[in-house]
């Protein structure tokens, strides 16, 4: 049952990713794709928060599975990030590719730590 709810939450997350990515790319005036970075950074912020808050209040388990593995796992994506970096490399834009991939990792780690801290201090 938890697995089914996790999968359905992942479906919702995927649709959210599509909406956010489409919205961000519509407003993006640069030639570097930004939608996936925004999606992944917000996913890491919220997952950090959920992880810390859940372990401080009601333990991990079902909530962690449905929200963490399901909703946020389906919302965030790794494969699109790889393909976007590859696209920049194929255009000869090595620096943009490195900044895109490395920057995403750094921003997302920062966002998750921020979420972990917030989840631990909020009563």
């Amino acid at each position, binding site marked *: 049952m938890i697995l089914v709810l996790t*999968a359905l939450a992942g479906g919702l997350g*995927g649709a959210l990713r599509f909406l956010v990515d489409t919205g961000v790319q519509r407003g993006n005036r640069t030639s570097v794709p930004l939608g996936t970075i925004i999606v992944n950074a917000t996913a890491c912020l919220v997952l950090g928060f959920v992880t810390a808050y859940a372990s401080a209040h009601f333990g991990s388990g079902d909530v962690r599975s449905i929200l963490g593995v399901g909703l946020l796992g389906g919302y965030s*994506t790794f494969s699109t990030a790889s393909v976007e970096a590859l696209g920049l490399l194929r255009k000869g834009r090595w620096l943009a590719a490195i900044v895109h991939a490395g920057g995403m990792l750094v921003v997302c780690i920062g*966002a998750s730590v921020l979420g972990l801290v917030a989840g631990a201090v909020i009563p």
Partner: protein
Amino acid sequence: MRFVGLALLVAAGATVGTLLRASIELAFPHTPGEWPWATFAINVVGSFALGALIEALALRGPDTGRRRTLRLGVGTGVVGGFTTYSTFVVEIDQLAGAGQAAVAVAYGLVSIVLGVVAAAIGAGAVASAFGRREADGQGAA
């Protein structure tokens, strides 16, 4: 297809991708101090699959109609929902928190580099198969 329909298509695909990922994570659990093999394999395999799919669709024509439906349902939906960045990053946090800073850095960098390499191999394999078919005179249909 209208925007809401496309969003539902992505949702259906991401449900399948998440079910696959959650099942693999359940079957191959890891402790916070270990290399997260399940997520690692999921992300590299997913990058390969998406690289291959996007290349195959791009070689067949512009991103409209059936090709767009396939890209969104299978690419953005199934493969996008299968791979994950949030779990990947929290695993890096957990490795660092477990005193495995070097493993945390290696896990992050190796995943990202191999992800791009896998996407390139997927795209290259499709492009060379497509090229062979063209050379054999079978056309692109």
